[in-house]
């Protein structure tokens, strides 16, 4: 599914990701943990193609297709979704307009027909109900005036609606209280499937109690410095990241 090989990324001339190799097979959820400044967000932006995140070496493919030469919207149409650590507010664009535009743009890029308005309305309502997104939230401009928790819920709502093949969750637990964390986690777990993959980026183990990973990787100094099963996350929670200081 997602295949990253010896990835090197520069941001503003600073070398941040220094030879990162990672495979996430279809059907699996992998967690990436690491201290602040390890390059976790840089990895998610480089994979999704944000300007200013310059890939200077290595490869990244999704189901065998090269990602790095594609525009961000083309990567999205291939099924790559990033749940942002800090979701943006888009004033003046109603949430439903935004989502229908995004969904239809992706369908168009894949050579599929547009979704009809009634079908879209039904889909958006069904998904909203599952995630506790109120009709009031859907009518407002996207994320404008939303609390931190509402924004994260809205990210997962978008994810469920767009039905991507590979999902990157960047610090999805930050800003969530325990009830919101449960709702969001349930929403994420519902999107797991045999033909889907997920990369969960987090600083804390807490999220992984709710979204159980198949593998846990430690990112430090721009490289994967350790990998293991879910028990690795528990060890990190107990011991912290100090022992990786020199590994980087």
């Amino acid at each position, binding site marked *: 599914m997602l295949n990253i090989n010896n990835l090197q990324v520069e941001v503003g001339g600073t070398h941040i990701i220094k030879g990162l190799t990672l495979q996430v097979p279809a059907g699996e959820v992998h967690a990436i943990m690491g201290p602040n400044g390890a390059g976790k967000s840089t990895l998610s932006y480089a994979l999704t*193609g944000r*300007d200013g995140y310059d890939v200077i070496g290595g490869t990244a493919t999704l189901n065998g297709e090269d990602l790095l030469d594609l525009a961000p*919207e083309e990567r999205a149409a291939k099924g790559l979704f990033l749940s942002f650590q800090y979701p*943006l507010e888009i004033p*003046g664009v109603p949430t439903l307009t*935004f989502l229908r535009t*995004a969904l239809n743009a992706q369908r168009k890029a894949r050579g599929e027909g547009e979704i009809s308005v009634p079908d879209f309305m039904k889909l958006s309502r069904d998904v909203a109900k599952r995630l506790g997104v109120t009709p009031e939230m859907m009518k407002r401009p996207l994320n404008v005036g939303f609390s931190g928790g509402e924004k994260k819920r809205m990210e997962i709502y*978008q994810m469920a609606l767009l039905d991507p093949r590979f999902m990157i969750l960047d610090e999805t637990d930050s800003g969530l209280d325990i009830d919101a964390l449960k709702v969001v986690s349930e929403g994420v777990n519902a999107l797991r499937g045999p033909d889907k993959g997920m990369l969960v980026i987090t600083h804390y183990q807490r999220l992984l109690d709710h979204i159980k990973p198949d593998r846990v990787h430690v990112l430090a100094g721009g490289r994967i410095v350790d990998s293991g099963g879910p028990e690795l996350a528990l060890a990190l929670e107990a011991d912290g990241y100090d022992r990786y200081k020199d590994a980087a």
Partner: protein
Amino acid sequence: MALAEVRLLAGEEALLNALPHTEAGEAARAHFTAAGLPNRRVEAFKWTDVRAALAEGIPEADGSAGLIPACLQDALVLDFAAEGFGLEGEKDQGLIIETEDSLELEGAGPLAMLAAGFAPRAVVLRVTQSQDRPVVLRRHPGAPMRVRLELEAGTRLTLIDTGLATAGLSTGLLEIEIGADAELVRYSLQNGGTGAIDLTHAAVTVADTGRYHAIALMFGGKLARAETQVLLAGEEANCLIHGAYLLSGSTHADMTTKVVHAGPNGQTRELFKGAVQDRARGVFQGKILVERAAQKTDARQNHHALMLSEGAEIDAKPELEIYADDVQCAHGNTIGALDDQALFYMRQRGIPEAQAKALLVQAFVTDVFDAIEHEGVRDWFSGLARAWLEASSS
């Protein structure tokens, strides 16, 4: 002002020769012969150089006056063409239309004088009863317009004025008197080609509790300038001016406004939004003057513009001048680029860059149109803005 030695350019000479031999035409000729056309050395025209635009003479008129949109099929249409003034449709009771060969000039400044000079006569509209049907003033390519509009106390009128020439010099002068508790709602549309020079001036006086609400949409031309001067003469007079300019290619649009609060308890709301790309140039000059007698004035002015290309230019001059001590006045002015983060966020969701930009710009300008009460006109203006965005992003 009387500079003895103003050397006129060939274009200015041609323009002066084209002025008709009417009283107003002669007055304009005398003025511009002495002072020359407004140019960048004159403070009020430093960004909109009329002399330079007309340096090669008056461009030949081209284009059409435009079709009346379906939402205004019931409107009374007044046509201002090079051949003269025409009326389409039956007028209702309470609207009197006359023409006057000679009227004292109410507007101020060179554009008012120029527009008065070119108009062979003034069309006078008197509203003695509120009008349900809107009135459309349709300016044809290369044609002058002068309209005096008087709203008697308590009456209401919706006015739409359009100038859509692709080329030529079009001028317009609106002298508007809004009586006590009367209301004028005005929607203006200007869309010009690269050969169009469009110069308009509106001079508005508002009596006690009268209301002037105006929403304008400009796409610019070789040179387009819409001036509005509002005098809130009475108590509790109300003024709302919204404007949007959407410019691409090498077009130029200028929205210049001056609102004078002369009576107490008045209110002004100004909101201007612009989006400019390629080598186009947008100009906003807005002044609010609160006289000593205008206590309890509540005035707000906002101008926000987006630069969509490196070569684009936006010039803004917001001004508040306040002589009363018990007032609430505020203004805000920003010029910036589209938010890169928002753009990336939208693209990450699969929306192509051009479409994402168009959505963001549309969202940016849309609150200018929110004040349009006429649903059909609101859809019309929004649709024109959307079409511009689609054309400029493809």
